[in-house]
């Protein structure tokens, strides 16, 4: 009997893996202020999942394909200056979500897979799911590590990067695909909505403690893994929805950091805070 035969062990391993990968990915999402865009991607993934479920192909593959496709539309619309990226993102989010719900209503309501996709079911994670998470997660981490300085450079100064001859559009697209991959491997565990929490929360928390990206990255991964493990333990203890509990732990860690962190915390010198809020 292997360690992985127990569903609690499988769930714990899945949570740890997902937490680490989301934490690493999130650093780039937070750095580029792509929270809303990532949210739109999760919504845009939705119709793909429904369609895939109706047609009968792998729902995560279908979701990922649709998500990337729709996000390319956002990039196209946001090139129009009078519409702006926020509006374009909002429209795509609404349209993607509506398409998903329309397909869902046409295909006779929730199936089990779809419910899992929305809110996750980490306790039913199979060894196959674990293998997929580990494989894709390792690939994502590998790419992030290999292209770390290029991605950070692009986040800080896209014009300069373009001037230096880098394929900026290709890097942006790569980042999109990576985010989509992370969403798709996280969704079975805690659901597509709450995957957002795990991508942005730990990275934003880590940013409160340090300005150095070299430290943010491991810190964010650690916070992600820790929050997942803690949330899972609490949820089994009190019989709560695991995805929701993990999200609440992530938010609690963020709020505590907000209060205590040296740079931004509510405990920093009062004069400094007053001046900063008026300036």
């Amino acid at each position, binding site marked *: 009997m292997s360690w992985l035969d127990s569903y609690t062990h499988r769930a714990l391993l899945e949570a740890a893996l997902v937490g680490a990968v989301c934490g690493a990915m999130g650093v780039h999402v937070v750095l580029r202020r792509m929270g809303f865009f990532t949210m739109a991607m999760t919504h845009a993934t939705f119709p793909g999942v429904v369609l895939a479920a109706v047609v009968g192909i792998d729902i995560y593959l279908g979701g990922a394909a649709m998500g990337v496709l729709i996000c390319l539309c956002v990039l196209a619309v946001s090139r129009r200056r009078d519409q702006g990226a926020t509006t374009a993102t909002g429209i795509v989010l609404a349209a993607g979500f509506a398409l998903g719900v329309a397909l869902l209503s046409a295909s006779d309501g929730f199936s089990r897979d779809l419910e899992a996709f929305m809110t996750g079911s980490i306790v039913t994670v199979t060894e196959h799911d674990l293998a997929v998470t580990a494989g894709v997660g390792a690939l994502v981490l590998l790419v992030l590590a290999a292209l770390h300085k290029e991605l950070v450079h692009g986040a800080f100064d896209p014009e300069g990067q373009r001037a230096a001859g880098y394929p900026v559009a290709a890097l942006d697209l790569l980042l999109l695909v990576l985010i989509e991959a992370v969403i798709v491997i996280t969704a079975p565990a805690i*659901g597509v909505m709450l995957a957002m929490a795990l991508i942005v929360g730990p990275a934003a928390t880590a940013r409160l403690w340090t300005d150095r990206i070299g430290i943010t990255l491991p810190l964010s991964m650690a916070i992600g893994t820790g929050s997942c493990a803690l949330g899972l333990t609490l949820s089994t203890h009190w019989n709560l929805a695991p995805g929701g509990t*993990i999200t609440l732990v992530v938010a609690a860690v963020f709020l505590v950091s907000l209060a205590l962190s040296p740079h931004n915390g509510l405990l920093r010198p009062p004069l400094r805070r007053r001046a900063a809020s008026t300036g």
Partner: protein
Amino acid sequence: MGSPLTDPFQVPYMARALVELLILGVLGGAVGVFVLVRRLAYVADALTHTVFPGVVVGFAAGAADGVFWGALVAGLLTAVLLTLLTRAPRISEDSALTVILTAFFGLGVVLVSRQHDYRHDLNAFLFGQVLTVTRADIVQSAVLAAGCLVALAFLGRHFTLRAFDPDGARAMGHRTWLLDLALNVLIALVVVAAVRAVGTVLVIALMIVPAAFGRLLSHRIPVIAAIGAGFGALCGWLGLAASYQASVLHGVQLAAGPAVVLLMTAAYTLLLAARKAVRA
């Protein structure tokens, strides 16, 4: 007999649904223009999710009537939190919103998991139940809408000034945080008025797409608001009729909310393409 655009509404519940959608369409278009110029699409999206725990608690406490009050409390609470957190220096607004949004939604999911009728709640939250709208619901929405429109009539120009030139607004003695709070509360009220009837899907779209459509046609805020309101109401009507036709006559289940949204986004895309073609 008459046309497919008017016939369905001789059935009383369809007529009520139409009135509700017309009210919400006008309201969404009018508030939406400020969502557009202040770039608050994410705030609007966040609010549609953060009312979820309120809806759950409200439903548990007082069934259908409790939903409104639960959503109202959750919505107002979020509006205040958003205003506070987005003023904190050095946290990007984007991250702050994501954390608030997911925390509230996660709370909703946890609360829902303690109850039995899980799918029903989530379903209702996504789709809304526009076909079961009662006369009292319509009155509630109408009162909220009237209140919001009056507030916009008085505050609209101040919102514009604050969006256009925040430093200038402060220099003229406006308290910008107060204006931000007021706008966040207005958005929350729209969400609360709409979410039970039309579901989260339609609420976000109602506040974003009509204003974006109007922006393509005009650069004057009152005109954009008027076009947006008209467009929202028109799409509400046509979408409802289409949903009825598809469901009743052709046997394809098409929920009203998504039908309206898809119609709006299709019209927006067409206009965008048409303008590109004219310019080229």
